């Protein structure tokens, strides 16, 4: 399997491969591997082959194609595709069919990408292991007794196991970057506002962001440049200034010599696995050889990031998930209930699994009268301080480096009954969402056994610098 969309694109143009051949190879890989991995909730075999045929015909008639045209991609099942189920891996939406396309889907369709299926996730994107899916856990292709990370674990596994070239996921507290690290893929969470969330089943709206998984940084950059941009259907989406647009040739060619990366002292505490630390040190050493300067920086409110996140996020969850009430769509106990209140209560009890229930309840509590100021009010203040920590540091450095996860993929079942242990999976990733800045996880140059990722972060809308630095290591990995 060719692991580069640019190489596949060239092979389509010079006729060494047909789109049908590449799509068939991906579909056959799904058939042979996905019984064991369970990355997909649904596969669109016939539609994908039909679309491949159309692009092959266009190519044979001398037509030109775009970079994503004919590329097999997968989509997290929390993003709507008109006419297809969108379950969010929840009983609540088990039989729900989307009535419109998410904006990212419209853009991907216009670009000619071939969506081969929908991928599994932790229910409503709540979790760090993809074990919380109502339809069964996804397994890590590197070791099927282990988790692929989460919540976009089906997406990360689909790319890692060559069951898609690209996947579209969402990241509220690390749900793209952590699964990327645990499966050896690249995962990019763009700046809040860079990509429209219209058509993403909302979890915590002030933190949610859509982004790509890929085999390499350049593929992720191509995908971002297709899906980004302001959208009238998402009022928080931002108009990009000329200087903020991606220049992919620039990412490929730019020198990183003279750029400055900060190492936040608060992140390098006890609890990082020796293997993770060793792989990261090798990356840092390689950057130094490329002329990158390293400075120790301080993000003083780091220890408060996870507690802050676990107040703000559930508060927004309890609000967003209030819409699932058995009245308009989704699971409904209407027929079995005596009155309106019972329709709500019975439908919600039956539709939500334990983790959404936990977060709805926590959110309801922290927003309730008498507790609002001491929990939610305070967390919003701390969020502001966390954001200021970053903007101060970015006056001194171009980027920040950390591990993506303190350890490699853990065993299925190991943490599933301990919510706090699972919440700590987000320890290196949540601050990025709280600050609204972009972050990327890139595989390290080497690892002993299971995949390891490192994380880079830059200031708001500085994806060009983020991807340039990420690609500097990534291209060495591929050499």
């Amino acid at each position, binding site marked *: 399997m060719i692991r580069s969309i640019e190489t596949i694109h060239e092979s389509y143009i010079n006729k060494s491969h047909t789109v049908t051949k590449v799509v068939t190879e991906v579909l056959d890989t799904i058939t042979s591997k996905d019984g064991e991995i369970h990355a997909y909730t649904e596969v669109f075999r016939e539609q994908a082959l039909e679309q491949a045929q159309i692009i092959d015909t266009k190519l044979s008639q001398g037509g030109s194609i775009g970079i994503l045209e004919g590329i097999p991609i997968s989509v997290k099942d929390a993003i709507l595709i008109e006419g297809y189920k969108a379950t969010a891996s929840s009983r609540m939406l088990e039989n729900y*069919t989307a*009535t419109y396309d998410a904006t990212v889907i419209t853009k991907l369709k216009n670009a000619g990408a071939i969506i081969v299926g929908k991928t599994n996730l932790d229910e409503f994107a709540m979790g760090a292991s993809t074990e919380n899916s109502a339809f069964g856990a996804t397994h890590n292709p590197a070791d099927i007794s282990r988790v692929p990370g989460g919540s976009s674990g089906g997406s990360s596994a689909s790319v890692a196991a060559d069951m898609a070239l690209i996947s579209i996921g969402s990241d509220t507290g690390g749900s793209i970057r952590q699964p990327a690290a645990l499966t050896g893929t690249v995962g990019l969470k763009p700046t809040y506002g860079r990509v429209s969330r219209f058509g993403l089943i909302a979890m915590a709206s002030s933190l949610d962001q859509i982004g790509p998984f890929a085999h390499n940084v350049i593929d992720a950059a191509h995908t971002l440049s297709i899906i980004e941009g302001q959208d009238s259907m998402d009022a928080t989406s931002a108009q990009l200034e000329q200087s903020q647009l991606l220049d992919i040739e620039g990412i490929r060619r730019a020198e990183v010599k003279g750029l400055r990366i900060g190492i936040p002292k608060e992140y390098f505490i006890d609890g990082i696995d020796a293997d993770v630390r060793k792989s990261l040190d090798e990356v840092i050493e390689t950057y130094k050889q490329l002329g990158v300067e390293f400075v120790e920086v301080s993000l003083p409110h780091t220890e408060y990031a996870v507690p*802050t996140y676990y107040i703000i996020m559930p508060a927004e969850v309890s609000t967003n998930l209030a819409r699932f009430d058995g009245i308009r769509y989704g699971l409904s106990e209407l027929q079995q209930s005596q009155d309106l209140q019972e329709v709500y209560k019975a439908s919600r009890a039956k539709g939500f699994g334990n983790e959404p229930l936990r977060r709805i309840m926590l959110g309801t509590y922290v927003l309730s009268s008498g507790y609002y100021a001491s929990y939610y009010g*305070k967390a919003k203040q701390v969020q502001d301080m966390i954001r200021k920590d970053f903007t101060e540091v970015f006056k001194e450095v171009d980027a920040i480096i950390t591990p993506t996860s303190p350890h490699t993929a853990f065993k299925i079942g190991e943490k599933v009954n301990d919510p706090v242990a699972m919440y700590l999976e987000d320890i290196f990733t949540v601050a990025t969402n709280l600050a609204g800045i972009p972050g990327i996880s890139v595989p390290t140059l080497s690892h002993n056994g299971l995949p390891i990722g490192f994380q880079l972060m830059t200031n708001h809308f500085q994806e060009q610098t983020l991807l340039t630095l990420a690609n500097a290591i990534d291209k060495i990995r591929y050499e």
Partner: protein
Amino acid sequence: MDYDVKSIAGLAHINLSEERQAMLTQDFGNILGYVKSLSDLDLEAQTIPTYHTSTLREDIAFEDNPRFSESTKKAILEEMPLTEEGYLVVKSVLKKTV
């Protein structure tokens, strides 16, 4: 930390089984214990609203939006648990008192 998961479930409109009630009571203790570190933080800083880039537009309907087409309307109606002549059916909201 005083919390009563049963009354919170009432606010959240969710029926709780005894099993889930026991699970949540334990989880709440652990999670609230964990997030409690925030209360140690002495905050002088002023809270400013999150920096969301939000845009305003004229308050006019997108008349030509395909999302408001008859076929979309039909698809939305099909997702509803119960409809009658193109309307959503709900349980009665008002109760007769006499």
